[in-house]
């Protein structure tokens, strides 16, 4: 490993909030753990916005550096650590897209069309049993996403990946605000129900 710091996330018992507090007093191992824990989901998220992997990795690096340098400003009352990281990643990604003049054509890659290979490989190395369970869970999520009506999925994608507010989504899709709110809430609830059903069946 080039930097010599161990990958601590699988065994590090510290919760995300403790890690951010440790980062506030310049604990590099806390940053390493937080990165190991969340970098893969966030890179997956970024790749839906920025398909060029090298660009997405640059944004990932910038986002974690920002987290490191502004850890003292993190307010646990306002968001969870993962939401905070996602917010910075999304903001950096949109900056990057604007800088490369692609913002005009900005549209997130669909939620259900990503390959599972990386996530699969990563998990199978870490814990084969957990991997099998997670793989089934991933399939369930994809299946649930495909089952959503297109209008609901579009609204969720615009909120989740582009961080557009409900009024902005309503304007972009030319729909009433109330309709957009219902679609997003309804879509998330349907996904949740599908996942719960899957979990009950698999148990």
């Amino acid at each position, binding site marked *: 490993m*080039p*930097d010599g*710091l161990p990958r601590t996330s699988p065994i590090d018992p510290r919760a995300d909030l403790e890690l951010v507090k440790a980062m506030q007093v*310049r604990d*590099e191992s806390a*940053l*390493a753990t937080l990165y190991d824990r969340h*970098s*893969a*989901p*966030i*890179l*997956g*998220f970024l*790749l*839906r916005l920025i398909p060029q992997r*090298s*660009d997405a*990795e*640059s944004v*990932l*690096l*910038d986002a*974690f*550096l*920002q987290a*490191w*340098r502004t850890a003292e400003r993190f307010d646990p*009352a*306002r968001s969870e650590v*993962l*939401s905070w990281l*996602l*917010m910075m990643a*999304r903001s950096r990604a949109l900056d*990057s897209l604007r800088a*490369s003049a692609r913002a005009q054509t900005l549209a997130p890659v669909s*939620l259900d069309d*990503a390959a599972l290979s*990386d*996530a699969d490989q990563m998990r199978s190395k870490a814990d084969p049993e957990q991997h099998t369970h997670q793989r089934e*869970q*991933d399939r369930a*999520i*994809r299946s649930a996403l495909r089952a959503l009506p297109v209008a609901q999925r579009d609204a*969720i994608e615009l*909120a*989740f990946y582009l*961080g*557009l*507010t*409900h009024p902005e*989504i309503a304007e972009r899709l030319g729909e009433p605000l109330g309709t957009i*709110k219902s679609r*997003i*809430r309804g879509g*998330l*609830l349907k996904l*949740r129900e599908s*996942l719960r059903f899957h979990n009950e069946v698999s148990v």
Partner: protein
Amino acid sequence: MTSFSRDELLGLAAAYATGSTTPDELHSLTIAMAKDAELRTEVARHQEVVSALLSAHAVAPTDLVRHRLLTQARVDVHRDTASTQVLPDATRNATATRKNLLARYAALAAAAVITLGLCAEVIRLRERIAGQTAFAESIQRQLATSEATMSRLLLAETNLTLAQLKTADTVRGPGVQVFFDRQKGTAVVHAFRFPEAPAGYRYQLWVTTIGPAREVVRFSIDRFGHALVGDVMMPVNLEKEATMSVTVEPEAGSAQPTSGAVVRGSVRGT
């Protein structure tokens, strides 16, 4: 500041979970969640789905991203440590001196003894001066190279295009300036504030117009995180808009970028 009814706040829980609230909405939700368990539960329900979505699409980044992140974090820590050490030490010493005059006199007496050692110190200093002179000469050589480069740039003035490659952190982050002479098709590449590349790796500059990225030049940085490379042949005509980036690659170079861009920027040759 807009005020929201409880039903409206419950309706905003999904927006909160997807990170798509307006500042007004976020503020109101934050206050309301502190005292409303049902609202917290509603938010948690949606966050559970968002986490599952993220988890299903996880993609492991390359090791180099982690290396670069932790290297930069270390640089930050060292810089912070260096900038905070001087004042407390000086303050402590001053306090100690005031508190113990006897120790001060003892120190003066000791100074007489130390004087005896000064001759040896002078010899050591002479050796150091010789070393510093050699260093100054090497700096002079570097300056001469820089001056020659600057002259080339001035001569090409009317045909010159400047591309600036940077990160979002333009104050502390690395950067590259590419001075492109449109007439000759050559460039001068100036890199600064770069972290040390891992052992066995160098930096590689790329240009992309249409199709795959093309290598421009490979470079290593000096101990100040700096590199200046002159007379670089540009592999493509920059008449149309192009993107330039620098990545970390194995010493022998890569045919295509294999890691994330350290810096990037765009350029138009005409």
